[in-house]
């Protein structure tokens, strides 16, 4: 067995912010007041917020200690399936922090921010080139806002041809955001069962597709880590009834430089820059969810759009069929800068990134399929899905194994998703992990499988190393305590 990287160490306790400090401290260097005090309308004034007063060293220790209770990609392998936890390059942070970017006011006249408009324009072109689609909006602030934008484009497209459609087809393996986004746009989501191969069957889609259905949302590769081999036939069935094909590109990291989405029959696609294009997840965001479309759907993209005339960039609102605006300004621009920086650093190595991501996932699949049940034994893309079927015999569940993996120094994979697989363990290593790290991960998982047989209680009580043991989620939900 390989030595594991997980170990215990000294961790500090740390109170809540308002349990520390002392009134009168400050951690902020306030500027001198060099103008006279002005009278105020007392009737409108309040007492101000009840925040604790702290000094700068208080703040530094507080957040440094809290950070030590976390693990991130910078700490170690973080194989969360469908989340693409790849390395977040440090240079991206430098670029987004440049004064002309960080301090830029969004409503500056175009002549005073040409470089930034140019960045938007060029990033749109780069994403079009990478996906195979024609036009791009960078406005959506995250994947699910990209999905909502896509659904609005579906709606606007059908309205423009004079009919309102009411339903959208969504495979049962889809991420929950898909039906939620469709509903938000007023569509009724209709579930499409996947076949025994874990992918869509064009005949089932054709049977469900009618002229009241706006189209389909497909995740490709899907959440089982499988390529939707029938995507073209599915797209044909949808197009035959006048519908559109939306692709959830959450898993696009598997196919850069390998698949042409337009050739797959996809009309609308969203990308997650915080997955495929290396921008940090930040403990839950911010992300960015650009939407790419075919030329025919370009008139419906959100406004404003950057246009280039005579080598000069300008905002344009002249798109009368546009769905409108999703964000007060232009989306999470600082995230766009990081993705742009990544693409320029990678160039055609993006294809290598996808190849290695898929190689890594298949390597794990081969390494573990003897000890964990593999519900779909086919070549996988960037992630592989196992279950706890073999370990349930010893009354050990997916959750127990996920928690135990923490003790070995790995963040757990995605668990209990997709919903169609009972006890799912979904592993996405990404291209950032080396063979040595993967060997360590495989070895840890094998060891956990042995422990399931020999000392199941060790797993039931896992994790043992982190600062806290398993948390009582039932108590949190029954008597919600959401602030102090």
């Amino acid at each position, binding site marked *: 067995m390989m030595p594991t990287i997980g170990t215990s160490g000294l961790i500090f306790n740390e109170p809540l912010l308002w349990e520390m400090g002392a009134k009168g401290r400050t*951690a902020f260097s306030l*500027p001198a007041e060099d103008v006279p005090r002005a009278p105020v309308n007392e009737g409108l*004034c309040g007492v101000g917020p009840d925040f604790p007063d702290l000094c700068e060293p208080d703040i530094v220790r507080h957040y440094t200690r809290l950070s030590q209770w976390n693990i991130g990609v910078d700490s170690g392998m973080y194989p969360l399936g469908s989340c693409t936890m790849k390395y977040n390059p440090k*240079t991206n942070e430098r670029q987004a922090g440049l004064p002309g970017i960080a301090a830029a006011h969004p409503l500056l006249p175009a002549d005073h921010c040409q470089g930034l408009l*140019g960045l938007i324009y060029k990033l749109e072109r780069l994403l079009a080139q990478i996906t195979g689609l024609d036009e791009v909006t960078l406005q959506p602030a995250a994947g699910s806002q990209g999905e909502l934008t896509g659904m609005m484009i579906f709606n606007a497209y059908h309205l423009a041809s004079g009919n309102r459609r009411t339903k959208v087809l969504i495979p049962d393996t889809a991420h929950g955001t898909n039906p939620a986004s469709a509903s938000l746009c007023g569509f009724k989501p209709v579930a499409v069962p996947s076949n025994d191969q874990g992918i869509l069957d064009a005949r089932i889609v054709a049977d469900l597709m009618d002229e009241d259905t706006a189209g389909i949302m497909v995740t490709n590769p899907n959440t089982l880590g499988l390529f939707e081999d029938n995507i073209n036939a599915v797209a044909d069935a949808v197009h035959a009834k006048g519908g559109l094909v939306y692709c959830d590109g959450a898993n696009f990291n598997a196919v850069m430089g390998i698949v042409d989405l337009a050739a797959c029959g996809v009309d609308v696609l969203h990308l997650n820059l915080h997955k495929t294009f290396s921008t940090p997840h930040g403990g*839950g965001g911010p992300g960015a969810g650009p939407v790419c479309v075919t030329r025919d759907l370009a008139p419906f993209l959100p406004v404003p759009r950057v246009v280039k005339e005579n080598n000069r960039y300008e905002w344009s609102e002249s798109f009368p069929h546009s769905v409108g605006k999703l964000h007060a300004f232009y989306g999470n621009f*600082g995230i766009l800068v990081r993705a742009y920086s990544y693409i320029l650093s990678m160039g055609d190595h993006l294809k290598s990134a996808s190849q290695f991501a898929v190689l890594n996932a298949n390597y794990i699949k081969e390494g573990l399929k003897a000890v964990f049940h593999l519900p779909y034994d086919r070549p996988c893309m960037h992630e592989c899905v196992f279950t706890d079927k073999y370990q349930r015999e010893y009354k050990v569940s997916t959750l127990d194994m996920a928690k135990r993996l923490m003790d070995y120094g790995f963040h757990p994979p995605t668990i209990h998703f997709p919903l169609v697989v009972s006890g799912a363990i979904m592993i996405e290593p990404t291209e950032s992990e080396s063979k040595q790290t993967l060997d360590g991960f495989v070895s840890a998982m094998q060891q956990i499988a042995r422990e399931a047989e020999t000392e199941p209680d060790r797993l039931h009580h896992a994790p043992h190393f982190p600062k806290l043991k398993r948390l009582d989620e039932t108590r949190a939900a029954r008597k919600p305590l959401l602030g102090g």
Partner: protein
Amino acid sequence: MRYLPHTPEEVSAMLSAVGADNLDELFAHIPEVCRRNTPLGLPEPLSEWELDRHMDGLSGTTAIQPEYMVFMGAGSYDHLIPEVIKQLLQRGEIYTAYTPYQAEVSQGTLQIIYEYQTLVSRLLGLDVANASMYDGASALAEALLMAMRVTKRSKVAVSRAIHPLYRRVVQTYLEPAGFEIVELDYNTQGRTDLSALDDSENLAAVAVQSPNFFGCVEDMAAMEKAIHADAKTMLVATFTEPLAFGLYQSPGDLGADIACGEGQSLGLPRSFGGPGLGLFACRQAHIRNMPGRLAGQTVDLDGKRGFVLTLATREQHIRRGKATSNICTNQGLCATAAAMFMATLGGTGFRRLARINYDNAEYLKGELKKNGIAIAFETPTFNEFVIRLGEGSKRIYRQLMAKKIIAGLPLDKYYTELEDHYLICVTETSTKADLDILVKEVTA
């Protein structure tokens, strides 16, 4: 490529482990028609140093301080950001972590969110704040959708003194599902005119911004009374400048049912409009209709205090098509920055900073007035107000621009009736000397 660990030897060892002859074979099962037959054809990769030079070039074209004086706010504010926040945000354990689904290895993020929720609910004067929305505009749209869920009504009223770009986002969100939006005009005082409410019945919510887009503080007390004349109708209070609540009463104290708006002022750079932060808070009674994530306090098996994401059954990953929102990834790191900012200032500092903003704006307002520049609305403001430059205003504005002074935001693009009007913003980053220069140049 420095981000990719794979050596040729390792690749061949791994390929043989998976039973493939080469990398292409891993993709052999993908139908031919789906494949790309040509290389990506992207520009040659840049070295770290070439990239720096390229980005310096793009960044160098922007009009920023100190070369320019930018008196523009309108939803994006120039505030001081302590170095301590910038450095702490770069802790890899914080910024490279995912959403804290695995609580035992995410206690840092979870406690940060819990503290953020607490500070935001105290700032806005409401019971519960969520873990963030994308930005102020989508937070407002989601608040109106929430009000319609709570009241089971399908019509909302929105003040025209709300940020015009927010109103467009609201329209984009509400239109496809067929909800009705009524607009309330503003009066000569630059405040929302509530008389239009008399014609509207069955409203799920009335949305008002304070300080509003013109910088004017609304008469929320009167509005609250008028809006709650129908006990079911919810008062949705929005804002673009939360620092104002260091001086003025908070939305919750004024009777708002939902408070939502932009949190960029709380320690986030303007960054060309994003990433910002949607603040969102409501009353305890409505938490199950709330969009977005929530962190809650609980205990671990040993009884030690800890935090988890909770009330997840409202969310898309469980309730799918019936969720309270489709939001998943939010603005976590921005919320972290905001929590740090509020903690850095403390209650005492927050009030002081708010007062500096107010005093600076009042000084500028007074000096402009003294020098014959019309102030459009005689209503109390915070750090923004509208001036009327009168005839030749466009020429004056251009001339100032040539002198590297951006004298506010021209309002005619957003309100055709406000030709020659400019929205001026001044924060703690301007000194008296800066303000005196602006006055001198505008009146020159």
